[in-house]
């Protein structure tokens, strides 16, 4: 990836699915990689089943914390209907990862650790070293099934490696 502008990842889903955790892990990983990172989301209703969006941007320098409509490089949806609703955030060259939801659904661990699975898929597109992903995952799942999460992350990476 060679891009002077920020890389924009749009996460969406519903409360309680792990959307915010996934965005946080990417944020930490991008920070470790040395990027300027901005992550914007709205709290307060997240655990009550409402729509959840997180805008994650990283690059040399990031201005707006929100991704302008039509500028997202990646759409990572945890819930198919939300992806349909928010599709106009994706740019013309943007990559929609919604198809991977179904693949995750076929795996028992993919259902259980959906956010880690989708991050594994996303990681294959981004200029972030595996060691930094590992550190970010470790920080997020410290004492919370880190091994299982990391295995799912690796599995997703292998499945999509092109």
């Amino acid at each position: 990836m060679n891009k002077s502008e920020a890389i924009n990842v749009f996460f969406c889903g519903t409360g309680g699915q792990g959307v915010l955790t996934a965005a946080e892990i990417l944020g930490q990983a991008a920070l470790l990689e040395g990027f300027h990172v901005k992550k914007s989301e709205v709290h307060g209703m997240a655990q009550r089943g409402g729509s959840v969006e997180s805008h994650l941007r990283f690059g040399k320098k990031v201005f707006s914390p929100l991704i302008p409509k039509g500028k997202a490089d990646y759409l990572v949806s945890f819930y198919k209907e939300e992806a349909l609703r928010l599709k106009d955030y994706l740019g013309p060259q943007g990559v929609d990862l919604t198809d991977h939801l179904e693949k995750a659904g076929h795996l028992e661990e993919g259902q259980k650790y959906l956010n880690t699975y989708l991050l594994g898929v996303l990681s294959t597109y981004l200029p972030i070293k595996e060691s930094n992903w590992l550190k970010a995952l470790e920080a997020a799942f410290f004492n919370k099934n880190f091994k299982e999460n990391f295995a799912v992350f690796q599995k997703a990476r292998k499945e999509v490696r092109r």
Partner: protein
Amino acid sequence: MNNKAQRTVFLSGDEALAQGAFEAGLGFAASYPGTPATEILEYLSKFPEVNAQWSVNEKVAYEVALGASIAGARSLYASKHVGLNVAMDPLMTSAYVGVGGGFVVVCADDPGIHSSQNEQDNRLFARIAKIPLLEPSSPREAYQFVKHAFAISEKFDTPVMIRLTTRIAHTKENVLTGLRKEFPRKEFKINIPKYVMVPKNAFQKHIELENKILKLKVYSEKSPFNKIEINDQKTGFITSGVTYLYTREMYPNASFLKLGMTFPFPTALAREFAKKVKNIFVIEELEPYMEEQLLMAGIKAKAKDPSFRVGELRPEDIPKIVKGKLRKHLPSTSRKPVMCPGCPHRSVFSVLKKLRLTVTGDIGCYTLGALPPMGALHTCLCMGGGITLFEGFKKVLGQNVVGVIGDSTFVHSGVTGLINLAYNQTKGLVIILDNSTTAMTGNQPHPGVGITIKGEPTKKLILEDLCRSCGADNVDVVSAYKINELEELVKSRVNADALSVVIVRTPCKLIERTRAQAPALDQTICKKCYLCLGLACPALSKNEAGLIKINGKFCVGCNLCASVCPAKALKKNE
């Protein structure tokens, strides 16, 4: 990382501001939880050097924090925008009184009403109260600005307001943090003309305040927070807060007057900018505050159509404003939040709905009781309004009205309403929805929980004793899950000739994450009345064939649906 003391951390605007305040030697901080400001105090509570507290409400928080400042410590108050309304009384006079150690007033506005009851623009409060206003654009700026804010506060002997918005408070960014520098406590000296606001002293203080504002205006003109960035001289923007970043994103080649201190407004600087740039636009969320300042100074700047005063701005809105377009407010398509599976509020509202009562409500998770298909909460105005609006309703309607309020909200500002009911001989029923936490903002403790912000046990407020002392004739405590008992109690109390309080005490499901087996469903006897669906439980749905389905992943086994099923097709799994 330059040296050991500096560390790059991924911080939200709330956290960065708190970190900056901590490093500035903050000694005291007080707040009441409110989205999007809650995390400021939560972050500060981790430091043993900072005496941090959840106060009973924002007025109390403001006064305690100001007291700590006058006594000599650097002190901070934080709340959401509407929280500052509650603290308006001390805020207004604190500008007269001034400070001891630096005093910073943080308010987090909520443009777009993500989690509030209105979208008021608190920049106007700074002008009304006559205190300087800083507007950071990002977590990094929040971290830097708060340090300067303490210095400004001490230099000019005034509270300093920092205004965040949701998109700053809840944006995370890498912030380079440093070490704490202790602030040597200022000595408190008795000074009656300064601290006792009787008419004679207050009049003198008002004269001084007007002079102070003039000096602060001079400071604002030269402030490092206000800067001109000249690029393309055909197009320029005057902007502040997060909208600076949106505009910078969309117009990278334009010139900017980037304002970080907006009251007193740097008029001369704006005039200088206007001389250098041909077409000027003023970009701001909500109220036309800067627009009016420019208008008063006779500086020509194009502003947004009034339709853009409603709602938060997003980057893609900036070109629309520049083109002079009107804002089209489309209905939101996002999924709305619902009460969690097993939420104790659900059973209360199912009873109130069944009894067809008019319900005056309040602010908390239970406000979700107003949403369809429940529709069983009929007013929500402000903190405490569940009880006081009830009194007004009761005096006019006489019957079949009930007031509901949460436990944290009751302690915040329901108590005075209950005393008023008793004093003014009002009869009827108030229900306290006691889930033993401040749930909607993320489960903060309050006096009724008996735990401090630092997690230490403290004196516990006994709500039933308090209600009796306020003048309630009957005080009953019931479990939300004993729905029949609850229904009988409500029926017997609602129109009785006595003032009654029913405390429905069942902890929030997000604290006690207990689960039981889902009810058994016998499709053969289900009459498809769909009364269970009226409960708006995320675990219940009907499929294409009209059959009820229980989602075992969501269901926590509260058995409420089994309680309301008339055909007994849903059976409790004991």
